């Protein structure tokens, strides 16, 4: 097939706008709706949910969203591709199939799942065979935190999504796949790009990178000319118009708010970028220094010239593990001398924590309103500053120490510096820290499983 296909992204992370995917379907032409639900920590949250209930462990809001758009996607043959499966893609598939039957669409929707990314049960085997899963940042072997691991998943790529589409799935549910693979997969499926067609695979990957954060490429979180970006309240989410030769245009539905310009796209291209010549995915290595951008009409940016390089023989692994406890509390100090009062509160609280002999791995104080974001670059705060939020956080392996910390903040309202408020929320919450451990694994160790059922 050589037709131009329209691939939209309606979800940049789990917690993004619930309306965006629905608007993308209702307000303009699209062929594919992609949705990115998984951040690094999301998998560990879902792992915990599944431990309590074997039928959970996926993005539940995905199911109700699909239910709402089912009549449209069936009528217009729109395909939905999402990594909403979390740690339980089959349960997510079953929930979608149930919803389809409930709505009277039995036999009308095929739902595919990509599994095999969950390696939690294979970790000991890997370690025993010398597959160390070393931390890519620190070089430490996984064995050093093995007992604290909460989830472990491999990032599959666009080719695995394409396989599910090849098998006729209208809704594809994956666990851990790369964000870019959600967009590349439909292109591989439509255009039959070969596994060594590096330039086109790189183009599809860069299309995916551009839209994977939803409205962040259509004027959201956009610094350039931010005050003149039209109608952010009705911001349009991105749509890629892809071609078989690997060229594509990024745009949004007519009549929606936001802005798509070469400059706004440049901001998104550099977001979470490492080495721009070596953007590594399971499908290829994309070279961002080869991208040529041109404005192709209002709210349309054309991409061309993209080059890629061969994929590596490794998959990326995302491990989450329990790494202690933390809590963060705050109080607000008002004029006059708001900053000095907040500083005194910090000294007083730290002295009390010392006296209680509590052990913390880290205590961090910030003065919000003065320098929390930019540190010393903010310069000294104005003497006349209206108010300052004293914000203090601790982390420790010792949960009790963190709990005791949370009891020491409120008393400052009565026994610390004056003109203080902002404690209506009560004691700060003690949170378990689920930390992230990036690693690599030979591709030969894994095989994705792709299956499709009819609802």
């Amino acid at each position, binding site marked *: 097939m050589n037709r131009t296909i329209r691939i939209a992204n309606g979800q940049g992370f789990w917690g993004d706008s619930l309306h965006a995917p629905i608007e993308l379907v209702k307000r303009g032409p699209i062929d594919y709706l992609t949705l990115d639900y998984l951040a690094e920590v999301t998998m560990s949250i879902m792992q915990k949910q599944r431990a309590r209930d074997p039928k959970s462990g996926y993005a539940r809001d995905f199911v109700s969203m699909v239910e709402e758009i089912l009549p449209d996607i069936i009528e217009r043959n729109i395909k939905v591709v999402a990594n909403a499966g979390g740690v339980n893609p089959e349960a997510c598939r079953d929930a979608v199939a149930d919803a389809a039957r409930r709505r009277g669409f039995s036999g009308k929707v095929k739902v595919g799942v990509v599994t095999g990314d969950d390696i939690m049960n294979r970790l000991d085997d890997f370690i025993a065979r010398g597959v160390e899963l070393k931390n890519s940042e620190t070089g430490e072997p996984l064995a050093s935190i093995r007992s604290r691991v909460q989830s472990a998943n491999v990032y599959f790529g666009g080719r695995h999504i394409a396989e599910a589409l090849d098998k006729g799935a209208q809704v594809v549910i994956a666990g851990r796949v790369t964000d870019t693979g959600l967009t590349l997969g439909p292109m591989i499926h439509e255009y039959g790009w070969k596994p060594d067609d590096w330039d086109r695979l790189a183009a599809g990957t860069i299309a995916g990178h551009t839209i994977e954060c939803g409205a962040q490429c259509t004027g959201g979180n956009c610094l350039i000319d931010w005050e003149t970006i039209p109608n952010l309240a009705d911001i349009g989410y991105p749509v890629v118009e892809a071609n078989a030769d690997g060229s594509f245009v990024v745009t949004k539905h007519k009549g929606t708010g936001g802005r798509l310009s070469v400059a706004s796209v440049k901001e998104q291209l550099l977001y979470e970028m490492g080495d721009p010549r070596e953007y590594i995915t399971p499908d290829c290595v994309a070279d961002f220094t080869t991208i040529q951008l041109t404005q192709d009409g209002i709210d349309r940016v054309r991409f061309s010239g993209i080059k890629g390089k061969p994929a590596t023989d490794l998959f990326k692994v995302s491990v989450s593990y329990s790494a202690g406890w933390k809590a963060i509390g705050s109080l607000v100090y008002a004029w006059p001398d708001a900053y000095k009062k907040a500083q005194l509160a910090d000294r007083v609280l730290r002295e009390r924590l010392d006296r209680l002999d509590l052990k913390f791995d880290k205590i961090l104080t*910030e003065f919000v309103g003065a320098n929390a974001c930019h540190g010393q670059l903010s310069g000294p705060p104005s003497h006349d500053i209206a108010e300052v939020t004293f914000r203090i956080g601790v982390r420790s392996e010792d949960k009790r120490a963190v709990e005791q910390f949370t009891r020491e903040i409120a008393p400052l309202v009565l026994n610390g510096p004056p003109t203080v408020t902002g404690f209506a929320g009560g004691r700060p919450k003690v949170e378990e820290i689920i930390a992230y451990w990036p690693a690599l694994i030979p591709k030969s160790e894994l095989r994705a499983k792709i299956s499709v059922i009819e609802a």
Partner: protein
Amino acid sequence: MAKIKLLKLSHARSGDKGDTANVGLIALKPEYYPILVKEVTAQRVKDHFRGICLGEVERFEVPNLGALNFLLHQSLDGGGTLSLKTDAQGKTYSSALLRMEVDVDESVARELES
């Protein structure tokens, strides 16, 4: 020569990868890109972010976008869920970099002021 804030010459976006923040710095006009390349070195960025960036700074050139990409290692108090920072993902480091002052020709400075 005159001193000008990067805010006048460029725009930026930042994000995170673990304990590393990235800042993409983009020239507002093609003719400003060589100024960025010359002035905004990895060492200057490291000095600029003292007290925030505790590790190395790497710089990558992206001439086709008129942009530089910086990696600021050990800048997010451990990053992700470990971090106690308000800005645990380095999302505001973009504008923090735009505070930097660089040397430009008087002619460029005059153009920016007009």
